[in-house]
C-alpha cells in the first residue's frame, strides 16, 4: 500500500474540482480519505481540503499524483518529512524519540508517506531508507545505528474510522459496569466472532487459570473444536490446571464435577507438572497418549498455536512455558499478526500484556469478575474494546450457545 497526502485549495467546490480529483483517485484504482476540509464562508473565500490517498502500489500512486497535480492537488510540503537519528547503542533510542500509539500511523520520508507496521503502542519508529519501510520497534530490539524517528514532525496518526451503523464495540466502550444487559452483548460478540472467521481473521483467546476452576473449560474446548480459536495466550497456571483436570479430574485438588476436595489433592497439581516435564512437553504428552482431553489437548489436536508466558510465581514450570519475559513478549508480538478479535478472560497481566501489543483497530473483549481489570484495559487505549464484568463460566456458556 502506497500513501500520500495532498492539499487541494481554491474555489474547489463550485468548480467541481474536489469531486473531480476524488473521482480521478478512485477511477485510477486508489482510495481516498478526506483528512480535513474547510469550506469558504463567502463566495470569494477559498476552500481547502487535505486528502489521503491509498494506492495499491507506488506506481499507481505516482500516476495518480501526476494526474491530480494538473488539477491543483499538490503533495504536502517536503518540510514535513520526519527527522531521524541513529540509535546510539543497542537497546537505546536516541534522545527525543517519537513514542508510538496503537493507532495506524504514517511517517513522511523522502516525499512518501510510509505506513508504520505493525501499529503498537510504546515503541519507537525505525525507518529503513533503502527499502522505504517504517516499522515499530520495541526498545529492547533497537540496534545501534538504526534510524529512529525524532519528534512529531512528519508523523501522522490516522483516526479510527467511525462506521455506520456503529458497532457494539464502540458504543459499549463507555464506562465499565456490571449492570449492562449481557445477553445482547454476548450475542453480538458471537456475531463479531463469526464475521472475523468469515473474513479469515484470527481469534485470539487470552485466559487465566480460573477459567478451569470455574468449570468453563468445556466451553473453551467447544469453541476450539468449532474453529473459533486460532491462538491462545496464557501462563503456566492455565495449562497446569487444565492438565491436572485432564489427568486427575481435579483443579488444585478440587474435583471439578463433584466440587469436593480429593484426599491429598494438592499433590495433583505438581504431579501434573511432573508428568508433562517427563513427557517433554504438552505436545509430546498428547502424542504419547498421556494427555487425552482438555483445552491444551484440543489445541494440539486442532493445531491452535499457544504461547505460555512465564512468571516469577510459577510452579514447575511446564517445559512449554517461555520463561524469558522478553522472548515471550516477542513471541506474542509475532503471533498477534492477523488477529481480528481478542477474547480476554479472567486474567489481568496477560490481558494487559496483550493489550499493549495490539493495534487499536483490533476488537477486544475483556471479561473479568473484577471491574478494575476491565477498566484498566479500556484506559490503555484499546479503542475497539468492550468490557463485561462477570464470572467467566456463565459468559462462555452463553457465548457457546450463540456460536
Amino acid at each position, binding site marked *: 500500500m502506497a500513501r500520500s497526502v495532498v492539499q487541494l485549495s481554491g474555489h474547489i467546490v*463550485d468548480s467541481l474540482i474536489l469531486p*473531480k480529483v476524488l473521482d480521478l483517485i478512485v477511477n485510477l484504482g486508489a482510495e481516498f480519505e478526506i483528512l480535513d476540509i474547510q469550506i469558504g464562508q463567502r463566495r470569494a473565500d477559498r476552500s481547502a481540503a487535505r486528502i489521503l490517498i491509498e494506492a495499491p502500489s507506488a506506481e499507481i500512486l505516482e500516476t495518480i499524483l501526476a494526474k491530480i497535480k494538473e488539477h491543483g492537488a499538490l503533495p504536502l510540503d517536503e518540510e514535513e518529512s520526519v527527522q531521524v537519528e541513529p540509535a546510539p547503542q543497542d537497546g537505546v533510542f536516541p534522545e527525543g524519540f517519537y513514542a508510538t500509539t496503537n493507532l495506524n500511523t504514517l511517517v513522511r520520508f523522502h516525499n512518501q508517506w510510509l505506513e508504520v507496521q505493525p501499529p503498537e503502542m510504546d515503541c519507537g519508529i525505525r525507518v529503513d531508507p533503502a527499502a522505504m519501510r517504517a516499522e515499530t520497534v520495541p526498545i529492547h530490539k533497537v540496534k545501534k545505528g538504526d534510524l529512529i524517528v525524532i519528534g512529531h514532525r512528519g508523523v501522522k496518526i490516522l483516526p479510527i474510522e467511525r462506521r455506520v451503523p456503529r458497532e457494539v464495540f464502540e458504543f459499549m466502550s463507555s464506562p465499565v459496569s456490571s449492570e449492562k444487559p449481557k445477553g445482547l452483548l454476548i450475542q453480538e460478540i458471537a456475531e463479531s466472532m463469526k464475521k472475523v472467521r468469515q473474513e479469515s481473521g484470527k481469534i485470539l483467546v487470552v485466559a487465566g487459570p480460573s477459567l478451569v476452576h470455574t468449570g468453563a473449560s468445556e466451553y473453551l474446548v467447544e469453541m476450539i473444536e468449532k474453529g473459533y480459536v486460532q491462538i491462545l495466550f496464557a501462563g503456566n497456571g492455565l495449562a497446569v490446571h487444565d492438565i491436572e483436570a485432564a489427568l486427575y479430574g481435579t483443579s488444585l485438588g478440587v474435583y471439578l464435577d463433584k466440587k469436593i476436595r480429593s484426599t491429598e489433592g494438592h499433590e495433583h497439581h505438581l504431579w501434573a507438572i511432573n508428568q508433562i516435564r517427563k513427557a517433554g512437553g504438552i505436545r509430546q504428552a498428547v502424542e504419547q497418549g498421556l494427555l487425552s482431553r482438555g483445552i491444551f489437548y484440543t489445541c494440539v489436536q486442532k493445531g491452535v498455536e499457544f504461547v505460555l508466558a512465564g512468571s516469577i510465581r510459577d510452579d514447575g514450570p511446564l517445559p512449554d512455558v517461555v520463561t524469558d519475559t522478553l522472548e515471550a513478549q516477542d513471541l506474542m508480538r509475532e503471533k498477534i499478526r492477523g488477529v481480528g478479535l481478542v477474547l480476554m478472560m479472567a486474567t489481568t497481566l496477560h490481558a494487559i500484556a496483550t493489550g499493549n501489543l495490539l493495534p487499536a483497530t483490533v476488537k477486544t473483549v475483556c471479561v473479568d469478575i473484577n471491574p478494575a481489570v476491565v477498566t484498566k484495559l479500556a484506559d490503555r487505549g484499546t479503542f475497539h474494546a468492550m468490557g463485561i464484568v462477570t464470572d467467566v463460566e456463565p459468559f462462555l456458556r452463553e457465548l457457546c450457545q450463540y456460536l
Partner: protein
Amino acid sequence: MCPPLYYGIEYEINPWMSRSRQSDRELAQEQWRGLYRLLQDLLGIEVHLVEPRRGLPDMVFTANAGLAWENKFIASNFRYEVRKGESPFFENWFQVRGYEIFHLPEAHFFEGEGDLLLCGDHFFAGYHIRSDILSHQKVAEILQREILSLELANEWFYHLDTCFCPLDEGRALFYPPAFDAYALKVLENHVEALIPVEEDEAKQFACNAIAIGKNVIMNSGCPRVRGKLESLGFSVLETPLTEFIKAGGSAKCLVLEVPHGGESGLG
C-alpha cells in the same frame, strides 16, 4: 490592440499553426484594420495601441497579455518561451499608466484574458492546456473574487476565449466538446442560458467574438450562430479574420479589455 506589423507564423504552439501555411502579411494588416475600425469608428470604443516588437509575432493577440481589472494589471506567465518576451512590453504599458502590477509565481502559467472571462457575476477560467489551475488561485486572491476553473479538453480550443464567449449577464456562446464533463456541469450551474456552437462554426472561431452591449463582432462565415444571436436581439458584425485563424486567434484574441475609470470598457 497591437498592430500586426511583425505578425506571422514563426513557430507552432497550437494545432492551428503551421509554418508551411504562412499568413499573408498585407491581408493580415487589412483584416486587423477592419476590426480596429469596427471598434473605434462604428462602435465608438476608445482603442489604445501597444507598440509591436520585432520577433514577437503573437503580440498582436493582446488578450493574452494579462488581466486588467480596476487599477490592477495581472501580468501573464506564458507557457511557451517564444511568447514570454511579450510580457515586459505589456507590463510597461500598464505601469506607465498607473496600474498596480501583479506577478504570479513563475511556475504558474497564466495567459490573461485568453483564459479568464467574466460572465455576469462569475469569473470563469480555463486551465490544463495553457494556464495552470494554480494560477487561478493566485488571481482569485488578487481580485478577491471567486474563480470557477474549467478544464479545457481539446487542443484546438486551447484558450477559454476560443470556446466560450460571455454575451451579457446570463448568456454565453460555448462549444461543448472543448470542455470536460465537470466543466460543462459548472457552466450549466452558473450560466443561465448557454448557446451551443457547432464544430464547423467553432472552428471558424464563432466563440472568439467580442460582445459590446447588443453588438457581437466575430469572424465572417458563421451563419448559424449569427442567426441564433440575431433571434436573441443581438446585432452581429462580421469581419474577415482568416489570416489570424492561421495562428489560432480571431476577434477576441486581438483585443484586451482595459478598464476605464474603474468601469469596464467592453461588455
